């Protein structure tokens, strides 16, 4: 089973086979980061541009390290310093960058669907580093890799995702992939943040203690203060009183439960400090795996075959024609 995409826009629609292939490939890249010389020449001479419209240190750094360990050249564009602050549209910015022929653009944007929008209009590979509330595929892949390393499998595990599921792209990517891989997903949070429409993707639960019962894996989500206008809950204190993962709550879960968090953590809000620093938390493993996942994604996409090349027939008088990529119909 292989991954045959020109872009990584999300995990929706990927089969268990494709997901496992991605996770396996990521696993095989891990040892490079353990070497003395943390580099392979595979993407030598390739250019990767990261275009981040939302501030992010860890994801961007993770991609940068991944690209450089693959010997690619990495250019980082943050929206505050870019032309976006001068009013340039996303499309114009992306077109300008694409005209410089990068091999991949890594996009993080606050609008769901922004990478899909670009993928239809720009010629190089697009990697989604988080679009609005929609998906964050590399984060979910590194979460899955971490889970599989610790638990040996994903199929049949009880996974609890806790917090602001409604606004979380990490939650969406994870729950799509977990379902495809056969895990049992439970979504936990107040009714304002875990509406019942999520019922088709997992079991909706509004009681944290009850929800983590028998959990093998707990994925904590950040309470995003930036998204908190809208009366989803009155105060952080009250949220924390009901939904903070404390040592006492953890007792309901399985003894060997592992805890994931995409970071950055709000200590004392969604997760208690002693839990965050305790043995069950595998947060630093996630970060390590993040680099491996991103190396794998770059490897798979930067060398990806373009859409079927259409080679016009050469005639006797003309030189053999250069193969031109045929544009796919407008569908992401």
């Amino acid at each position, binding site marked *: 089973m292989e991954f045959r995409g020109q872009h990584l826009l999300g995990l929706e629609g990927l089969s268990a086979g494709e997901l496992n292939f991605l996770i396996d490939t990521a696993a095989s890249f891990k040892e490079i980061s353990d070497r003395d010389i943390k580099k392979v020449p595979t993407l030598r001479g390739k250019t990767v541009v990261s275009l981040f419209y939302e501030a992010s240190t860890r994801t961007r750094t993770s991609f940068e390290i991944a690209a450089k360990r693959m010997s690619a050249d990495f250019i980082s564009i943050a929206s505050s310093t870019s032309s976006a602050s001068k009013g340039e*549209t996303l499309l114009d910015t992306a077109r300008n960058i694409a005209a410089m022929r990068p091999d991949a653009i890594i996009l993080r944007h606050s609008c769901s669907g922004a990478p899909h929008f670009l993928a239809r209009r720009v010629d190089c590979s697009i990697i989604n580093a988080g679009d*609005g509330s929609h998906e964050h595929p590399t984060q979910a892949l590194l979460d899955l890799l971490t889970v599989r390393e610790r638990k040996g499998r994903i199929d049949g595990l009880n996974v609890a995702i806790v917090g602001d599921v409604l606004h979380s792209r990490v939650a969406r990517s994870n729950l799509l992939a977990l379902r495809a891989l056969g895990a049992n997903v439970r979504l936990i949070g107040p009714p304002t943040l875990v509406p019942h429409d*999520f019922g088709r993707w997992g079991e909706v639960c509004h009681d944290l203690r009850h929800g983590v019962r028998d959990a093998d894996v707990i994925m904590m989500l950040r309470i995003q203060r930036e998204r908190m206008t809208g009366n989803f809950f009155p105060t952080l204190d009250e949220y924390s009183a009901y939904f903070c993962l404390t040592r006492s709550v953890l007792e309901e879960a399985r003894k060997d439960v592992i805890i994931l968090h995409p970071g950055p953590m709000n200590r004392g809000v969604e997760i208690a400090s002693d839990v965050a620093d305790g043995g069950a938390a595998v947060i630093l493993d996630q970060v390590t795996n993040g680099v491996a996942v991103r190396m794998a994604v770059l490897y798979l996409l930067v060398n990806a075959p373009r859409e079927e090349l259409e080679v016009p027939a050469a005639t006797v008088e003309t030189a053999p024609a250069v193969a031109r990529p045929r544009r796919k119909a407008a569908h992401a």
Partner: protein
Amino acid sequence: MPEMLLVAGGTVVDPANGVEAARDLLLVDGLVHALGEPGSLTRDARGAEVVDAAGCWVTPGLVDMHVHLREPGYEYRETIASGAEAAVAGGFTSVACMANTKPVNDNAAVTEYILDRARAAARAHVFPIGAVSVGLEGKQLAEIGEMRRAGIVAVSDDGHAVNDSGLMRRALEYARLFDMAVIAHEEDCGLAHRGVMNEGPTSIRLGLRGMPAAAEEAMIARDIALVELTGGRLHIAHVSTAGSVELVRQAKRRGLAVTAEAAPHHLFLTEEAVEGYDTNAKMNPPLRRERDVEALREGLRDGTVDAIASDHAPHHADEKDVEFDQANFGVIGLETTLPLALRLVHDHGFARDRMVRALTVAPARILGIPRGTLSQGVVADVTVIDPDAVWTYQVAESRSKSRNSPFDGWEMKGRARCTIVAGRVSWSLAERNERH
């Protein structure tokens, strides 16, 4: 020498007068003169221009009671001239245009300007709708009386809802003085806050903020209560949910002066059209679910929904070809409304008479304009419809300045063959084909 036009060989469908039969129609000096058995008017019509309506339906000129012509202020999207041109190309002889221009049509001067530009365009008749509140800000009543004198036919803050219930109450009361309906864009802004599509599993899956059906239904319930309180006349624009249809049905049963319209996109598309973040599926109210589409069709069938209106909302490519969250709401519809209404007849068992009613006498009556019939002596607005013409809608060929349509490439069956405004052919398919 009187100016005469004979529309011969077609089937006249005039629901207002209960006519649905093979008839010839004679128009003299811009007015409807006579209806007669096929061939019987030839003697009276000596010297008349003849429009061949063989195989066609001959209906009163179609009336679109909800369009946005964008002039003054947004001429890069559409002008009154281009909009009126698109109207006749779509078979419409009359359109009513909303007040969300720049400046807003909240005073007599803007109303007069619009009428002036419409006269100059000399295509479809344009009936302006005035604002309910100054600047559409929802705070203070606009000069409804002055605008009525200048020529508006209804009031509406469309584009926005009237959030202040107290103001809506006063508007319904005050408009009674001028015998006009208040046309309401029903959207509870607190509920629909920053939403970009219907709230439900699809919005969740796509990570887009949703506008729940309740946002429309709650407002409709409020406004129906206000009609009961004030005795005013309420027309609900672009109804989109099953719950809304049911509320209107009950209000009518109680004898309240409540009418409603539905847009073709709500009759044929669901929220699935947003898949892939296609901004031509972004409008307000948003596309809903299958069962809402069915309820709307049922509402049209049983008369709960009185009219079909396009909500023609032109936007420039720069405003639509962007990230979904950033794109403007709305799609054009003047040239696709009739073919889609015909689809209801061809494919969904709608009676022909019902469909024609929803596009002629029903909207005309709500607006109180002397249109939508073929009664003797009325202004000779006539649409000749070829119900069987098979064609493909190509938005690139649209008469509108804008190209934001979700129906590009759709195979259609039926279209206007000829649009006659005030006794003169304003648009014909034959002439259009010659130019291509």
